[in-house]
């Protein structure tokens, strides 16, 4: 579904992503794990068109995305939930969701909204509340709900567990599994390696812009290298 082929990304002179290639198949959950500064978020930003690669290419459902504008990438069904949740703080929950459907025909919005409220009853309770006053977990739900409003084929989640209490992290991962079972392919970027590998079909370990290890979620969880570096022995 998504094929990232030998990309190289620079921040001015800093070579952030080095010859990176990986693939996400239809219906998978794939995770990129790695420490701070490994290039996880940079990779996602490059896929969604916010940063550009100097070499190689990015194919989504057979189409080349290397030089497509970010808003067109969203319209193609490749949607990112940005790091740190990024709400429209002054809009209500409902209005945030409506903004998520910006690329959709207006007559479908009510149905899409109902669907989100069915999935996230918590958001339904708070539909008239201003997004800035939601708790961290609720904001993460809203961010995911907003992304789902555009009926994505592939959803890219950037650190959904960031800054959340362990209980809420469980909840968020529950939602990810649920979204996946409803047919959305997921590319998950996480620092919380044990949780991410538990839900993922496959994973890639990133270190300073390179993939150092890849395999199924189970394989990676049992690998000594991953255990030592990310799972605490």
């Amino acid at each position, binding site marked *: 579904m998504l094929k990232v082929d030998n990309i190289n990304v620079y921040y001015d002179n800093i070579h952030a992503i080095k010859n990176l290639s990986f693939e996400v198949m239809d219906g998978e959950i794939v995770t990129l794990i790695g420490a701070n500064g490994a290039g996880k978020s940079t990779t996602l930003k490059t896929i*969604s068109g*916010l940063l550009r690669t100097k070499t190689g290419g990015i194919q989504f459902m057979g189409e080349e995305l290397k030089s497509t*504008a*970010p*808003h067109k990438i*969203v*319209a193609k069904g490749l*949607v*990112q*939930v*940005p790091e740190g949740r*990024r*709400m*429209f*703080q*002054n*809009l*209500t929950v*409902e*209005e945030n969701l409506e*903004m*998520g459907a*910006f*690329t959709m025909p*207006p007559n479908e919005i009510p149905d899409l909204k109902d669907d989100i409220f069915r999935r996230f009853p918590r958001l339904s309770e708070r539909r*008239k509340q*201003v997004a800035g006053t939601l708790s961290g977990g609720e904001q993460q739900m809203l961010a995911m709900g*907003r*992304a789902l409003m*555009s009926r994505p084929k592939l959803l890219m989640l950037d650190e959904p567990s960031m800054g959340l209490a362990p209980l809420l992290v469980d909840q968020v991962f529950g939602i990810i599994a649920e979204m996946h079972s409803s047919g959305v392919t997921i590319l998950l970027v996480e620092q919380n390696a044990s949780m991410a590998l538990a839900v993922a079909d496959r994973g890639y370990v990133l270190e300073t812009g390179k993939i150092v290890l890849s395999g199924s979620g189970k394989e990676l969880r049992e690998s000594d290298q991953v255990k030592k570096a990310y799972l605490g022995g």
Partner: protein
Amino acid sequence: MKTRKNLPLIVKYLIVAAVYALFLLAGNLLIKNKVIGLYYTKVLMVVAINMILAVSLNIGTGYLGQLPLGSAGFMAVGAYASAIFMRKVPIDPKLIFPVGIILGGLVSGLFGLIIGLPALRLKGDYLAIITLGFAEIIRIVILNIDKALGITLTYGAANLKNIPKTTTFTNAFIWVFIACFLIKAMMNSRHGRAILSIRDNEIAAESCGINLTFYKTMAFVVYAFFTGVGGALYAGYLGILNPSGFGFAKSIDILVIVVLGGMGSMTGSVISSAVLTIVPELLRAFSDYRMIVYSLLLIIVMIFRPTGLMGTKEFNPRGIMDFFMGRKKRKEER
């Protein structure tokens, strides 16, 4: 979003238009019967021009959340474009003034597009400085272009004279209405939503599939267009133009109006244009202390109402209706 029964949109617009027409009629009657003298008629014309300039700057600062400081520049472009056109065309100036105004707006909008595309890659302070710079360039170009190219177009420092004085109380306030109506209509559309979402959170807006460059540029061009319209009316009001009238102090004046009215509130911009234009006139009695009182007034308002007179709220006739009909006040929605 509101669940309460609403009048059809057309009916609402007709009511607003009718009320406004009554206001124009009343104003005209008062002027004709010399209740409002020539001097105050002129003050009212300046009020109208400032209203147009303020509501258009409000698109850039209030709705888009940027700080463009190029009002004087776009105003100059609109003023000179329309004035040159009005002087050249040998038809009754009263008849073709609307064409002159729209032309002023269009030329200014074009400049907005040319300047906006590169300038909007920057944010905040940088955008403020670059637009300020562009406005100064426009002023200097108008000042020197005749000499440099050996033509007589703007007359530079020698003043562009004999511009037909076609701005009246009525047509100035009709343009206030047109500007407010069109800007409001734009902001209530999905395009307006997109512009507001960029102000709230650019990253979130982008991840919703909003084309940042397009909407930022669109807001900027509409700002330039209506500032140009204001400039054209200004030219028709003064009858004589000099580039020195479009220095950056002019841009700051307009910004002060918008900030005092409340960034993001169109009603705020309208009210504060009226207040900040009329108050200095009323204070003429204190001659020497006039500007001190004016400045103090600004400081006091900003201390007690840091978000401006109206904040981001809009005046809504429903609030008054509710008050008189004893309905319970609705809870603030946001």
